[in-house]
């Protein structure tokens, strides 16, 4: 249910969004709807605009043209309370970005305590429970550099979940991981999808995208060139560029 009372409206609406870095246009009139409890995967080559689109959605980047509405709130409006908006949207980055000077537990507790005013005991209880869910409860008092990449990334996901977001943005979260560590992270995302979390996922893991996505968007050169259900995109892409991209990726997967 979106908070504006209009249950029919998609949870996320991106309307003709354009963005430039200097002279370079990195997003070209991108439009995208994401329904509540849906999972949308963004695929495309590096530099196609996937990450920038995600960063625009929680206002880490400024949108220059167009409009984004999340949960009935027009976030591209000047007077939006950015901090309040971000409490509803979790984002997980490729490089985990855990806080290296804090223990795992402190990483997970920080935002609930400081941004939402949850009491120390409640925040700690919730953090330990979440860490238990990913099997890392005994790592609670370790510093991040003592954890493997896969463990760090799962902590980063849990850190975002501790804010009880309504939307999760995952930005190529397995790209920096050794292959044998990828599956633990993807399993956690799969669980999230099953629990009904609304997610937008930028990924290079095609098999995973095909399995969890309700909708796939192929980005090419700052544009959503093609979107559709996973079966349609992977079996029968309409656009030659999509076909080309998928062929190249599948080739690379075979080689590795």
């Amino acid at each position, binding site marked *: 249910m979106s908070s504006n009372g209009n249950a029919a409206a998609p949870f996320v609406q991106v309307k003709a969004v354009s963005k430039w870095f200097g002279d370079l246009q990195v997003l070209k009139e991108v439009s995208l709807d994401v329904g509540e409890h849906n999972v949308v995967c963004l695929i495309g080559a590096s530099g196609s605009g996937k990450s920038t689109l995600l*960063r625009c959605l*929680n206002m*880490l980047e400024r949108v220059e043209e167009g409009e984004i509405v999340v949960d009935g709130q027009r976030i591209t409006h000047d007077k939006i309370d950015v*901090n*309040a908006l*971000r*409490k509803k*949207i*979790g*984002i997980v*980055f490729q*490089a985990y*970005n*855990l*806080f*290296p*000077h804090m223990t795992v537990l402190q990483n997970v507790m*920080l*935002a609930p305590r*400081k*941004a*939402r005013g949850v009491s120390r005991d409640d925040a700690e209880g919730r953090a330990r429970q979440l860490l238990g869910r990913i099997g890392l409860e005994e790592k609670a008092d370790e510093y991040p*550099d003592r954890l493997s990449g896969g463990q760090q990334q799962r902590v980063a996901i849990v*850190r*975002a979940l501790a*804010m009880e977001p309504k939307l999760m943005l995952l930005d190529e979260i397995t790209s920096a991981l050794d292959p044998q560590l990828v599956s633990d992270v993807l399993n956690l995302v799969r669980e999230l999808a099953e629990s009904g979390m609304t997610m937008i996922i930028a990924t290079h893991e095609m098999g995973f995208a095909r399995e969890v996505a309700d909708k796939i968007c192929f980005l090419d050169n700052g544009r959503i060139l093609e979107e559709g259900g996973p079966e349609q995109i992977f079996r029968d892409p309409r656009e030659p560029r999509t076909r080309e991209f998928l062929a190249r990726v599948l080739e690379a997967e075979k080689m590795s």
Partner: protein
Amino acid sequence: MHALHEVLHAFFNLHSFTLAMPDVWAGFQVNLKMMAVAEVLVLVLALAIAIVRGLPGRGAKPFRALAIAYTDFFRGTPIIIVAFFVGFGIPGLQLGYISSRSFTTYGIVTLTLVYTAYVTEVYRAGIESVHASQRAAARSLGLSYAQTMRYVIVPQAVRRVIPPLLNDFVGLQKDTAIVSVIGVAEAASLSQQFSTQNGDFPSYLVAAVFFILITIPLARFTDHLVAQRERRERAQAF
């Protein structure tokens, strides 16, 4: 050879060295006090100015400019000139309370003004060395700009700049001798007095020994921190 013998005798005379000890020690306690107070003030003020210098947005522009002007002025002015300004200027203003402080207080003010400018730059380098992704991670969790600085950026920055910061403190400790020019009765000026009265120089040696004795532990401690960090970073690389 005779001249060298004379000089050596004038500096290294154990009897005179022992005689000078109590006077110079009394003065050195003033140096210790100035160091301690100035260092605490510098740690706090420099961090505040470094943060102001990094404030985002157009509204903060005048504050940023003020912070830049401050560091430019006090890094560019020789400390002895600042000492004259503070030590002779402030009493001359006849501003009641602030114009009737002791020489020691004006010494502390001088040291604080100058070293805050240096240490501001040290902090600033530390703040800028924290990767932008840390800021993005904190902000995306809903933490405000101030909370992000307080809990995520500044703690990491301070840890990184402790060695260069302690290095500046070695300089500050020695410069407590310079503020004797405005009349602070500290170790250097008292050793000079003793030397004039006795017609020899071991009192200077006494002062030198005191300064070295408190500088060496600080220098070794700094080395230790640097070595510790290197070990840790090497351990992470494997």
